[in-house]
Each structure stands twice: as C-alpha cells, then as structure tokens.
C-alpha cells in the first residue's frame, strides 16, 4: 500500500467524518428553527422531540436501517474496520465513516416531520413513528436509490436515469411525505382555521432562535451536500467539493433573497419567517444536483425554490394543511423541484427518470407513513386533548415549561 494511498484514505475518511459532524449539527438547526416558530407553551416538547428523534434515528439505523438500505447485516455486522482491503472495489474511506455519514441523513429526514406536526401531537406517538420511519420506511426507499436495489424487483431507478446527488427527494421530500401523511391524520391546530375559511396566524415565539436555526442548517448543509461528493483527496474530487460548497451557498442566498422580495410584494412587509424558509428552500432545491450547475444557475435554482416556497405555504394554508414551520413546502414541494431541475444541468439524468423516482419515493413514503400513523392513532391516539393543547403540550407531555416563572421550591 503506497504512502499516497494511505494519505488519500486518511484524508477522505477525515473529510467524510467532518462532513457527517456538520450534518449532525443540522439536528440542532432544526431544533432551534422549530422552537422559534412554535409558541412558548410548546417549546420544551418540540425540543424533546428533536433531540429524542435524533437518538432514535441513530439507534434504529444502526440496528436495522443500514442493513436494509445497503444490505450490510443487522447491527452493522457487515461493517469491517478497514475499507482498503477485502472488497473487490475497496472504498477509499473507512466503512464506519460511511455509516456515520449515512445515519445523520436519516435523522435529518425525521427532523423534517417534527416541525410539521408541532404543537398538537402526542410526544410518544411521534417517537413511535420515528422508530418506523428511521428503521424501515426511509431505509427501504434509500435502498432503491442510493442502495441501487430494484423496487420490489420491478424496476431499478438508476437505470431509468434517476439522479439525486445529496437527497432533495431521498431525504427531504421523503421526510415531507411522512409529515404530510401525519398532518392529514392529525388535523390543524385549534384556532388556525376559522369556520368561514379564514386563515389565522399563530405567530412563533422566538424569531432569534428561528434565525439561528436557519444559520445552523445553512452551515450544516455544506456537510450535507459537500460530503456527498464522498471524497476530497484528489484534484478532481477537491474541485468537485469546492464547486458543491460554492453552489450550495449561492442557492441558499438566492432562495432567501427571492422569498424576502416575494413576501414584501405580497404582504407589504418583509416577513422574516418566509425569508428563513426561502434560504432553506434554496438549499433543498440545489441538493439534488449541486455539482453541475454554474454559480448563476445555482443562484437561480435557489431563487426558484424561494419563490415556490412562499406560494406553497399560502396554498397549503388554503387547503387547511396546517404546517407551523413550513416543512412540507420547504422540503416536499421544493424537494420535488430540486429533482426536476437535475436534468437541466446533468446529462446523466432524465426527466422521466426523475419523475418516476420522485413518484416512487413519494408514494412509498406517503402510503407506508399513512398506515403507520393510522395504526398509532388507533392504538394510542395522535393528538393531545383540546384542553392539553390549549394549556400547551409542554405541561401535558413533559410536565415542565421552557420558561418557568413564579415557581417555588416549597413542596
């Protein structure tokens, strides 16, 4: 084994791990964004959900998810310590680094769900669903896409020209599809929609946290997309990584500017929450293919996502699909846009392949999630009582407030 190879192996592994750590940090971004966009009385519960789902996703993917997705054996038994020997085509990074990078993506998909069902869902119903999504639903569609397996022996997406670089569809749209199924069975927050079709605002409690969360997600996304190059220790892959970083950043900026302007034109004021959603929409839009667009194309793709996300949020409200943080619009609608934009710059993909791939992911995740949510609803119920919702799920589910006042240590 040459010294150069050893150096490449070490550098690629190191790069992979650092990118994985950046993606892990996106869990903090989601937690802060969601905590900022809910009311104070639901803060502790959304934080509990976010950090618990991360732990559940990591554990379920370790137990069975990775095995389903990459055919590697349960409890990571297929992972050997050294990726440089043994296989016919040795990986250039440590196999456990691959698991680590993959597992944080599962957590991202699940994080998307928590915001959409915020402020009214039972904590344990949500966590039970997290087990199913991260242990089975996501790994199955992951096996058909990044895993390269055929869809129940019928067709193979890769052969049809389906391409999703870092997961606009596989991660983001999948999470949104699961969220949509949950929201449909769960219903809207009390007071969100009036009897005569009016849409009432329920303002988030802490916009500094929501903004910090968006910055954290923006930062973490460099790991999400940048790491998906899977290597950096050669001139070619280092160039690719730099392009991906540049385009990812450009798309987020384009998305934010577009959403900010659209909100200003539509509402007359600069709506910060829409601008934040716009940045995330730009990121989701570029995630399916950040390596082939020019910087201008990346900015425009992001801007397209930023425009689309505002109209999607307004439309979902008209349909009475209550999504407190805009997750279904940001990750689902714009995730689909991201998939459809891939063939514009990547000759290796086709529109038909993208549409079949998107449909496969959406139908699978939506239908299985709907069944899972429905079963949970029958067993334990999805929703807290009306009184508990009015008092806040912090007290109902966690028995503690995020910002307690007038407390006494006397028993």
């Amino acid at each position, binding site marked *: 084994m040459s010294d150069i190879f050893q150096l490449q192996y070490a550098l690629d592994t190191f790069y992979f791990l650092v990118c994985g750590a950046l993606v892990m940090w996106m869990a903090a971004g989601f937690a802060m964004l969601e905590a900022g966009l809910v009311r104070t009385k639901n803060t502790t519960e959304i934080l509990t959900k976010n950090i618990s789902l991360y732990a559940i996703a990591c554990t379920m993917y370790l137990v069975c998810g990775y095995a389903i997705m990459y055919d590697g054996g349960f409890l990571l038994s297929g992972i050997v310590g050294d990726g440089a020997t043994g296989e016919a085509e040795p990986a250039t990074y440590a196999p456990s680094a691959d698991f680590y990078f993959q597992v944080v993506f599962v957590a991202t998909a699940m994080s998307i769900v928590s915001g959409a069902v915020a402020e009214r869902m039972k904590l344990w119903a949500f966590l039970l669903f997290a087990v199913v999504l991260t242990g089975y639903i996501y790994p199955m569609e992951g096996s058909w896409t990044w895993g390269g397996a055929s869809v129940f022996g019928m067709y193979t997406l890769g052969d049809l020209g389906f391409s999703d670089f870092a997961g606009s569809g596989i991660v983001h749209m999948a999470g949104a599809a699961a969220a949509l199924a949950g929201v449909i069975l769960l219903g809207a927050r009390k007071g969100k929609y009036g009897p005569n079709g009016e*849409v*009432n*605002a*329920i*303002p*988030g409690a802490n916009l500094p946290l929501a903004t910090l969360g968006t910055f954290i997600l923006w930062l973490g996304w460099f790991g999400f997309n940048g790491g998906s190059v899977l290597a950096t220790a050669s001139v070619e892959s280092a160039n690719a990584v730099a392009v991906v970083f540049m385009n990812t950043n450009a798309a987020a900026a384009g998305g934010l500017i577009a959403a900010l302007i659209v*909100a200003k034109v*539509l*509402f*007359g*004021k600069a*709506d910060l*929450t*829409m601008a934040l959603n716009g940045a995330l929409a730009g990121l989701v839009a570029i995630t399916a293919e950040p390596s082939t667009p020019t910087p201008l194309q990346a900015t425009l793709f992001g801007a397209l996502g930023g425009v689309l996300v*505002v109209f999607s*949020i*307004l439309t979902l*409200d008209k349909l009475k699909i209550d999504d407190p943080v*805009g997750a279904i619009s940001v990750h689902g609608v714009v995730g689909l846009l991201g998939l459809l934009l891939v063939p514009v710059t990547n000759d290796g993909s086709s529109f038909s392949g993208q549409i079949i791939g998107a449909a496969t992911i959406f139908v699978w995740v939506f239908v299985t999630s709907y069944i899972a949510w429905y079963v949970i609803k029958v067993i334990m119920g999805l929703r807290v009582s009306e009184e508990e919702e009015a008092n806040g799920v912090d007290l109902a589910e966690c028995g503690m407030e995020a910002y307690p006042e007038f407390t006494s240590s006397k028993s």
Partner: protein
Amino acid sequence: MKMVTAIIKPFKLDEVRESLGDLGVTGVTVTEVKGFGRQKGHTELYRGAEYVVDFLPKVKVEVALADELVERAVEAITSAAQTGKIGDGKIFITNTEQVIRIRTGETGADAI
C-alpha cells in the same frame, strides 16, 4: 394623600420619570401593561395570515403623593407623556388612606 396612576406610551417613560424627579418625587412603581382604549388594536401579518393585536403595550406609572404635589405632578406627567396623537394614555387619581414605610414603620405623608 393621593395615588396618581398614569398609563403612558412606553417610549415616554424616561421623560416622565425625569419630570417627576424634577418635582422632588422620591419613588414610583412602573409596570409593563397591555390594554386598549379608543386607539383599539391593530392587525399584523405573519406568514401571509392576519392576526389582530387587541391589546397594545403601555407602561403604568404609579406614584403616591402628598395632596399639594398632585396638581404639579399631573402637569409634569401630561407635558412629558404627550405626543398629541391617539394612544397617549390616561391619568387616574385616587385617594390613598394610609402609607406605611416598612423599614421604619413611619406612616402618612412622612412615609411617602
């Protein structure tokens, strides 16, 4: 003795405090409050949906005064807190039966 309670615009608090201080008033109690008067509330937009702010933020200044100071204190508050626009607030004057300084037990005007 009287209790003068003024509901004022929050950004006028410093001026009101200074003008009362100039009169020799030695203490006030300030509370952040919300309410509505003729100004009513106003509507805001959040993510494209309207919401009504029924109660506007105001500051409540409470000051206990000897009878002879009341008129000048009201003048001071009025001139300091006035903008001439709707929502400037109100002043309420009520009788105060007794005042006791907790530290010394003094009562009446001495305790103010």
